[in-house]
């Protein structure tokens, strides 16, 4: 006799009466339909958006845009951002971990973004530094942060994020008088280029200069 069947014999089983149980089943089934519709809508919307924006092998057309709009409608995205229904849907999606789609490294692998700091000392020395974390797990998360920095359309948010990262580095080097942050992406060689001996190159996209003062603790990033 298996462990499972021994346990099931040993403990009482909480059975609902038949009619009550059936009502509960219908109730939970209805909740599942709502939940699953949202899961499908999020995934469909993300896939249709990729097609509509011509990022896939399929040709973009108004059909895909219309279909994406329908999926967005299911997710209440046509309502104003402050609408309680939209807020409720967003909250539920986040609570269930279903607010993002499942296209990992698809349809294509994103650019490899990087952030490099030049630390300028009062005596003219210049050193380079990278954002500092203690563990590899946090290092992997930085990669996602860089994707956000690269893709946000909000210039102020981008600058604030980079300034915060620069400030975190500066705190470990308080004698530094200026930090230049260069954000860009690594142009990785293709397989054929690699076989020809080509190396990766770095393309700078944004450059920011920051100055932090040790005697002015308020000089950190403003939120």
């Amino acid at each position: 006799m298996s462990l499972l069947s021994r346990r099931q014999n040993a403990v009482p089983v909480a059975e609902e009466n038949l009619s009550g149980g059936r009502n509960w089943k219908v109730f939970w089934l209805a909740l599942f339909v709502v939940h699953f519709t949202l899961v499908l809508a999020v995934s469909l919307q993300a896939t249709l958006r990729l097609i509509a924006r011509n990022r896939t092998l399929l040709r973009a057309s108004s059909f895909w845009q219309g279909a994406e709009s329908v999926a967005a409608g299911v997710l209440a995205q046509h309502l104003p951002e402050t609408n309680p229904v939209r807020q409720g849907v967003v909250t539920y999606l986040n609570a269930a971990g279903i607010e993002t789609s499942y296209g990992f490294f698809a349809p294509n692998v994103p650019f490899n973004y990087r952030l490099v700091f030049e630390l300028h000392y009062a005596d003219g020395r210049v050193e380079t530094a990278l954002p500092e974390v203690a563990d590899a797990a946090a290092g992997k998360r930085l990669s996602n942060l860089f994707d956000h920095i690269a893709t946000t359309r909000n210039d102020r948010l981008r600058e604030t994020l980079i300034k915060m990262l620069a400030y975190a580095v500066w705190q470990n080097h308080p004698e530094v008088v200026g930090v230049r942050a260069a954000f860009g992406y690594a142009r990785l060689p293709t397989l054929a280029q690699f076989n020809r001996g080509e190396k990766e190159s770095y393309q700078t996209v944004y450059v920011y200069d920051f100055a932090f003062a040790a005697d002015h603790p308020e000089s950190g990033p403003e939120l």
Partner: protein
Amino acid sequence: MKSLRASLLAFFFSPASDLWLALLRIGTGLELLLYCASLRGDWSHLFASNGEGLISRDLTEAVVSAEGGLIPTVSWLARGGAALGLTDAVTVTAVWFVLVSASIFLVLGIFSRTSAVVAWLFHLCAVKSIGLMAYGVDNFTTTALFYLMLAPLPDAYSLDQRWRKFPAKAAYWNGFGRRVLQLHVCVIYFFSGLTKMLGAGWWDGSNLWRAMTRAPFNHVPPGWIASVSCLLPAAGILIAVIETTYPVFMGWKRTRLVWLCLVLAMHAGIALTMGLYLFAFIMAVLNLAAFGSDLPSLRRANPHSGFATVAARVT
């Protein structure tokens, strides 16, 4: 109409053992423990506020609350801590200890329901407060904890049942919970595979090359990958096919074991070649909980009683 309703109820509420739930509980508890361990050295740095830390969490939380004002964050917990006289830094540390405790309780199956709710809430707060640094593993862990919180706990393997003699739930609730998880996992793989198929780079192997040579996932020397480059197109297509056809071949009992092994091998490969250990682990947990719990009985089971057959009957 009555027959459709009966078929639907039969499809969703067919009795099942609670082995799937034990796998989900223990696996998700371990995942959460590994999550806490992996971020232990950076925890205070990641969740610091008021302009401190790597990215002050106030900024991330502002972005999250612009999306939805009711999404919980660590600042919610910090406000609760402040009411008890705790500083922000102490609350942030306490969140880590609560998560570790909840994950240990989940693994052991003590106060299973309470532990699942606490783990889900605190993990959600943590994930949303570093939302700009979150990735797939966080969403899958949230989803696993969300289902666990609503699942018919405690299961027969938990200490709640063994020591505290909590009654087991009716078998059809286990069937429902497992079916929901199965359908969700099918959607995950189908869309993951479909979007890969829509990208040219998955057909010629160039996306695999880029994924494995891209920092911080470049755990394998590129020279070694280049030496087996003839396999890359086939591997890329195989991954996309395994994922897209997942609902079909996992739904059919005859192919379930083979497909489960293929998927687990794929995730083991991702863990070893790209260093995504936590991601591979949570995917293995979700797969085993959804489809692995009835494998020991597969040989004896009627091959025509699988989920594909029941689904066909419903439609």
